[in-house]
């Protein structure tokens, strides 16, 4: 909606916004590899609850994170959550399961605000910045924090 005219702004960041658990979130579009429909994930034993499992993404094993569970939001019905955003974080690739993808936004960097320091909220640690688009607050997701902790699983 607003992306065309703002695209020329050199200091703006392009974001992919989506809805999850009734809230608006976004990620830097540069880290998005693709968006695909939901697929039945193979669940992993002993995995944290927010790890939905793994799916086959054209021959590679892609872990799926149920973002609403990860953020501690209300989990809606499974049918609603039908989009997987495949994000690429350097070495690691993961799929974020969200309710729906909404838009691509170009936000000037000065319009980004640091999130207020509210420790009670679990989702707080996953948000790196806030911005307002058309009167709606959009949270910018800290992808590193969302990823499942990697390393040695306790045996």
């Amino acid at each position, binding site marked *: 909606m607003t992306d065309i005219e703002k695209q020329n702004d050199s200091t703006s960041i392009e974001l992919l916004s989506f809805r999850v658990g009734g809230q608006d979130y976004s990620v830097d579009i540069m880290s998005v590899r693709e968006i695909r429909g939901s697929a039945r994930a*193979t669940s992993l034993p002993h*995995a944290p609850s927010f790890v939905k499992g793994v799916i086959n993404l054209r021959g590679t094993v892609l872990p799926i994170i149920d973002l609403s569970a990860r953020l501690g939001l209300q989990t809606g019905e499974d049918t609603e959550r039908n989009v997987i955003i495949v994000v690429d974080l350097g070495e690691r690739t993961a799929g974020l399961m969200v309710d729906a993808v909404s838009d691509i936004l170009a936000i000037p960097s000065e319009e980004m605000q640091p999130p207020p320091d509210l420790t009670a909220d679990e989702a707080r640690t996953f948000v790196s910045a806030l911005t307002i688009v058309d009167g709606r607050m959009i949270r910018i997701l800290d992808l590193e924090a969302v990823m499942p902790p990697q390393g040695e699983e306790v045996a």
Partner: protein
Amino acid sequence: MSDPMAEIRASFFIECEELLESLQDGLQLMDDGDTDSETINIVFRAVHSIKGGAGAFGLDDLVHFAHRFETAMDEVRAGRFSPDAEAIRLFFACADILADLVRAARDGDQVDDGITGPVLENLDKLVGLEEEEEEDLDFTPATLSLDFGDGGTLPDLPELPDVSALPSTDAADDALPALDMPVPAPDTDIPPMAEPECKGFSVKFKPEDALYASGNEPLYLFRALRDLGDISVICHCEDLPQLDSLNPDTGHLSWDMTIHTEEPEQAVREVFEFVDGLCLLEINALTGDQDGTSSSEHTPISPAPEISPPPQVETAPSLPENAASTRVDAAKPSATKDTTKKLGEAKDEQSTQAKAAATPTQPRATVRVDLERIDRLVNLVGELVINQAMLSQSVAEAGLPPNSPVSTGLEEFLQLTRDIQESVMMIRAQPIKSLFQRMGRIVREASASVGKEVRLRTDGENTEVDKTVIERLADPLTHMIRNAVDHGLESTEKRLEAGKSREGHVTLTAQHRSGRIVIEVTDDGGGINRERVKEKAIQKGLIPADAQLSDSDIDNLLFLPGFSTAAEVSNLSGRGVGMDVVKSSIQALGGRINITSQEGKGTTFSISLPLTLAVLDGMVVRVAGETLVVPLNAILETLTLTDEDLTALGPETHVVQIRGGFVPLLDLGAELGYRTPQDSYVGGTVLLIGQEDGNRAALAVDSIEDQRQVVIKGLEGSYGRVPGIAAATILGDGQIALILDPTDLVGQATGRTRVRQPQQLLVG
């Protein structure tokens, strides 16, 4: 220009690695008491070839060291020095340094003179050669022999036999046993730099098959010669057979060349440096007129049969008029060099020729392929396997009769896929020998630094393992070997006290066992001091002070991060970064590590690894709505449980009675956390899992779906390690199925097969 050179350099270094390997092999054989001359020759040749190649690339450090090493080896070869254990240790050290130098030259590094110096000194002391002389003489045999050649060019032909030939023949005969033979006077009479008289050289060149096989092209040699001066080439094609009997892989041509040049003979020899040993080559200084005369003049010198190498004789029939001069030529340089105590060089020349004769360098039918290409092939085959599974599934779903052409065709396709896959895997497989050889060095270095006498025994070094596994095994194995030497073996005094041999033994074995490769590191040391281990673990807060641990529990404490039992930190191991790192790198390879230790007898670390990292045969099972793959090699049998088979053991556990033995029952779904234990397992299907340690377990599943080959897709890269799960795979329907790691699963199974209040169980 630089590119082809870089390629040649690269292949030189690859060859060096092979040569170093055969050098190690040879030394090992010598160490084991093999005094066969062929073994010594192998060692000598390896060093010599490295020196030769290094010379071509101007790697002076390498050349210098290799030369000294070679000289020493030559003494051994000539039987003037019989190496004892200490000498062989020194040779090993030399081989190690040589390897270092090769790598340094490859990477453009420098090797500290402080390391090479003392070893060289010892070497010279050992062999009894005077270092000074070796240092002074730059080994350029050609220039020296050229002086002699000048003798031949002296215009005063009748003088020849008197002045040069006869005395030098004496010298050749006498100098061999006695190095200090005074230089015969006539030699010094000849002005050493009488080169202006030299108008050029006649070159006889007969390539052997190996020359062509190694990709050399005589034409280029001629061109290089042409750069030195005017050249005329006569090609001899008398040996050329009839077309119908012509073997295209065999060379039949030989050439006579006359070069008019002011360059020294050395320059001409350098042209042929690359084909050294691959051809019959003789270079004679050109007399004023033609070499026919000179050869006849040289004839009297020919009695030097012990020096005249066999291959030269081959030329005799084909070029009878030159046979005599051939012999002369071989004798001449030797004689000259002997008189100047350059015996090593003389031998060296001889050896290249002798080598060509003794072992006709048959072309090895190997191809060097970039690993990346193989990996791509492996990946493609992986995709093929998945695709084939998908196709099979579609065909099955189409409901075609089992004997339809499609089904039979598919069956053949399946077989082919499997064959291709196995062949590709075989390309990646390599003998584990190279790794074991590196460990030999680790043992030598480690034992030297802790002052223990250690002998490494290896077994099964021809066991083939995936290349990646070999590469990634190097670090953990190094650690384990060091540990064995440092911690495992007792000091010499303690060994003697305990009535053991003075020399500690570390044994490294590799073998295939039930579809996996098992590598064992065994030492005959004191075994694990379990009390101390436990004490230490308590001290470090790794376990509670009142923990009740079995022997194997205590042994496994060694794998805990931050554990180190060495009373004091030695510079070898004991920094506490040891075994936990070893364990995790082994696990990353899909392997396992176990310890068995016997107090006073020694300790064995055994690593078990999957043969390949790409494909495995698995049984596809379903449990709690999930599809899982169980590696086929872990399954001993499958059975359906009856009421009699099943016995309750504790309040929560069952055992299955199989032919008189009791096997714990595990519910796969419950163990993986997919469901709670079932009410009854009677009538259910169980897989009897056999482990490497001989323990068995019965794994209850809902149903067995299929048995097929699956492509292994690692989970570590994308998600992390999952307990009980080895990897994932993609099934025919595109779904991901997890591949079970039965040993890991059984190892940490709770064994709960009955619902009851959960209880803390001590994990064994």
